[in-house]
């Protein structure tokens, strides 16, 4: 109970601090909000987020339908392969595209060999929009494909028997059932787009997150006002999605339902081409670009004006730092949300419900905002702040607040997966509280808790803005190191580190997400 309350306060802290700073700011926050200083980046953030979520929604839903509901070739392969872009942090994706198109980049060389001298420079809105859409569509694709595979043929067949045409049946019966999944997926994409920092920075597209970063040292009041606006944007998005999506009671039959697959006929080739080109752009292209960096100088004589050096010690250090701090974050995140999950799942307590809501809401909080709040809080809070500033504890706390919400869902499922009668049965067999915990609760919840920890681990490894702002000096992580190396054009080492990160991320994603999402 106490643990749950402390946890909830922790999760609410950064948002509360941003609010408080705005209230106590000398400048009138509202004035700032309506001044051009904020209006322009807000408009850019909004434009980008809307464009990206619509694009990702269209790509994700279309591919999901092709894979789950048509006779497209290699459907099973696409089901897994099209989810892979999730493993790329958006800034690495952006970097890969920028680099590939630049003089000396692989795409530039390739096009050059066909006689195309002038490759378009991929910057600004178009670049950010393209990169974010390509790397976020799986947030729509995965839930929609999963949902489409759950709708039994009998539903459509009943509609047909009641007089609907095939298309009408799809619109009246199937579509309403996947709309909530599409909406939820697009919300994730929207939140991702407004909180993205790395990709927009590399693309030189000044959204709210970038404006916060450029202002936070010189004009903290502006940065906090920008943060408030960003928070408001996230809140509006979450609220809007909530308003429009009606949740359907989903009956999930444990047996795989019989599915209706549309026969594409001649369209089969077009469908295959569509799936393959998305796969090529969003998965193969960045991998090829990264391999190209990592091996640059070995296979091709590239001169980028920088020494091609690679320091194995640096690579190992950054890897160890990232893995260590991510593991710690995963552990603490699960420990932080477990008491809340127990309160909600086992005791249905009201304070537990409120704490649960706070943690869920923290999902919409962009990393840069958490970073900013904690950075200033430690600067302003005397001894405690000075003692915490630049510590691993603060970094881990920031990560936990950012990603704890990812763990609470599975943790709650894990808590609920222990049937109360099993616990009662153990009591009648003479097991005391400790024995029940160690012999029943923990073993039964282990899978769920591990999954929760794994999701946090995965996201923490890919995190950029918090790592940039909060990581102690002299504590490089994979993401910060890749980011700097890329900006400084040390592409070989950046490429190696990025491949290490993507490989770790792929292994984790596969183990946690893809393997479970009924590839069978």
């Amino acid at each position, binding site marked *: 109970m106490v643990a749950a309350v402390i946890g909830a306060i922790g999760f609410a802290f950064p948002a509360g601090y941003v609010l408080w700073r705005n209230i106590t700011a000398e400048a009138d926050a509202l004035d700032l909000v309506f001044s051009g200083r904020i209006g322009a980046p807000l408009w850019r953030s909004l434009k980008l987020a809307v464009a990206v979520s619509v694009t990702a929604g269209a790509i994700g839903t279309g591919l999901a339908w092709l894979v789950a509901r048509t006779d497209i070739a290699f459907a099973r392969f696409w089901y897994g392969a099209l989810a892979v872009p999730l493993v790329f942090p958006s800034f690495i994706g952006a970097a890969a595209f920028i680099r590939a198109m630049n003089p000396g980049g692989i795409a530039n060389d390739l096009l050059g060999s066909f006689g195309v001298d002038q490759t378009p420079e991929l910057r600004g809105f178009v670049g950010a929009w393209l990169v974010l859409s390509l790397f976020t569509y799986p947030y729509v694709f995965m839930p929609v494909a999963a949902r489409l595979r759950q709708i039994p043929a009998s539903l459509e067949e009943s509609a047909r028997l009641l007089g609907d045409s095939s298309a009408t049946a799809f619109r009246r019966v199937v579509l309403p059932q996947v709309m909530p999944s599409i909406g939820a997926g697009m919300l994730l994409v929207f939140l991702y787009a407004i909180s993205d920092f790395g990709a927009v920075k590399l693309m030189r597209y000044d959204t709210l997150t970038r404006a916060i970063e450029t202002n936070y040292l010189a004009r903290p009041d502006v940065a906090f006002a920008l943060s408030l606006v960003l928070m408001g944007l996230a809140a509006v998005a979450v609220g809007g999605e909530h308003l429009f999506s009606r949740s359907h009671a989903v009956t999930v039959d444990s047996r795989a339902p019989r599915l209706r697959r549309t026969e594409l006929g001649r369209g089969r080739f077009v469908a295959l081409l569509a799936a393959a080109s998305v796969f090529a752009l969003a998965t193969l292209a960045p991998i090829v670009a990264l391999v190209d960096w990592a091996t640059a100088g070995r296979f091709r004589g590239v001169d980028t004006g920088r020494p091609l050096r690679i320091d194995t010690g640096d690579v190992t250090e950054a890897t160890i730092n990232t893995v260590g701090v991510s593991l710690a974050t995963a552990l603490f995140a699960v420990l932080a949300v477990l008491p809340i999950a127990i309160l909600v799942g086992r005791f249905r307590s009201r304070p537990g419900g409120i704490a649960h809501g706070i943690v869920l809401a923290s999902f919409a909080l962009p990393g840069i905002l958490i970073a900013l709040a904690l950075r200033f809080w430690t600067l302003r809070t005397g001894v405690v702040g000075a003692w915490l500033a630049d510590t691993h504890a603060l970094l881990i706390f920031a990560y936990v607040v950012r990603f704890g919400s990812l763990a609470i869902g599975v943790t709650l499922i894990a808590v609920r997966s222990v*049937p109360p*009668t*099993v616990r*009662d*049965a*153990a*009591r*009648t*067999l*003479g*097991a*005391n509280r400790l024995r029940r915990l160690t*012999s*029943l609760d923990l*073993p*039964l919840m282990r899978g769920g808790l591990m999954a929760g920890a794994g999701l946090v681990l995965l996201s923490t490894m890919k995190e950029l803005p918090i790592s940039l702002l909060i990581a102690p000096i002299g504590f490089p992580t994979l993401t910060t190191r890749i980011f700097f190396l890329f900006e400084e054009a040390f592409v070989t080492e950046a490429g190696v580190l990025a491949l290490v990160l993507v490989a770790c991320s792929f292994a984790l994603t596969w183990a946690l997400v893809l393997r479970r999402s009924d590839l069978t």
Partner: protein
Amino acid sequence: MSAAHVAVSDVTHGYGAGTVLHAISLEVAPGESLALLGPSGCGKTTLLRTIAGLERPDTGTINIGDRCVASASQWIPPEKRRVGMVFQDWALFPHLSVARNVAYGLHGSKSDVSTRVGRSLELVELSGLEDRAPATLSGGQQQRVALARALAPEPDVLLLDEPFSNLDTSLRIEVRSEVHRLVHELGITAIFVTHDQEEAFLVGDRVAVMHGGVIAQHDTPRAIYTRPANRWVADFVGAGSFLRGTAIRNEVHSPIGVLPLDCDAAVDADSQASLTGQVDALVRPEQLHLVPGQSATVTGVEFYGHDLMVGVDIDGQRLTVRSGADDPVQTGDAVSVAFIGSAVTAFASEPPG
């Protein structure tokens, strides 16, 4: 296996607003099996959980053997009560093998535990399945693992919460006679919860019929069937119809003739006053017989294979009559009804309206 006496006295237990158990008192003799019978929500499961220690009574005392396990001043938690319990969903530990499920409540040396596990599994005829995971077993097998697990620590009393309700009909009949036999052979005190009257009669030496948080009648199955304590029990247990008539001395004068009143039932069970005047006599379908005549009309026929249940209307009153499966009776036929039973139970007629 020991057999303990169980005594529940004056136990009251409430969930929030509504009281679920009202001053329940109940005794179960050592080695006896008692069925708690009642519709859902009558408090039977709550009573069972109170005896197990999974619920704590607000007032009253519970004794198991010579130990007081619950009273105003004393509380023994379930893990120290030496009660075995079989849950409705069996509550097998999904991550443990059959053998480790059964061994869960056992202590002692490894070889001792494995001997006792073997013996328990032998008892329920599951030897050889020690290493299987519960999920790979059939419903009937899971049920028997749950029973073996509850029996292995040699509890003083065995509690079973709707133990057969998750089984298919044919399997249910088989498993419940098996369990009945086992409980009797072991001579353990057992308390079953069930909403199925047939099951209660079959497995219970005695039956406690519960209704609205109180025990309406606690007696042998035969007594409950032939002499229900009140109109509600008469209605809930078994098929039957109420036939209006006039009680004169120890007989009821009714449209189907004079029915002898059961000696014990000559006193109104509800008010304890001597029965006179207008009464409703409880007549079971097997106490009636269709004979040729014109006094009644057939309103419906239900074919059960081994017999027929025939609905008839006699002077505006509806009766159910059992008949042979080969009786060619049809809806609309004119018939007469004869009483072939020995005696009936009657209740003072409810005031009209």
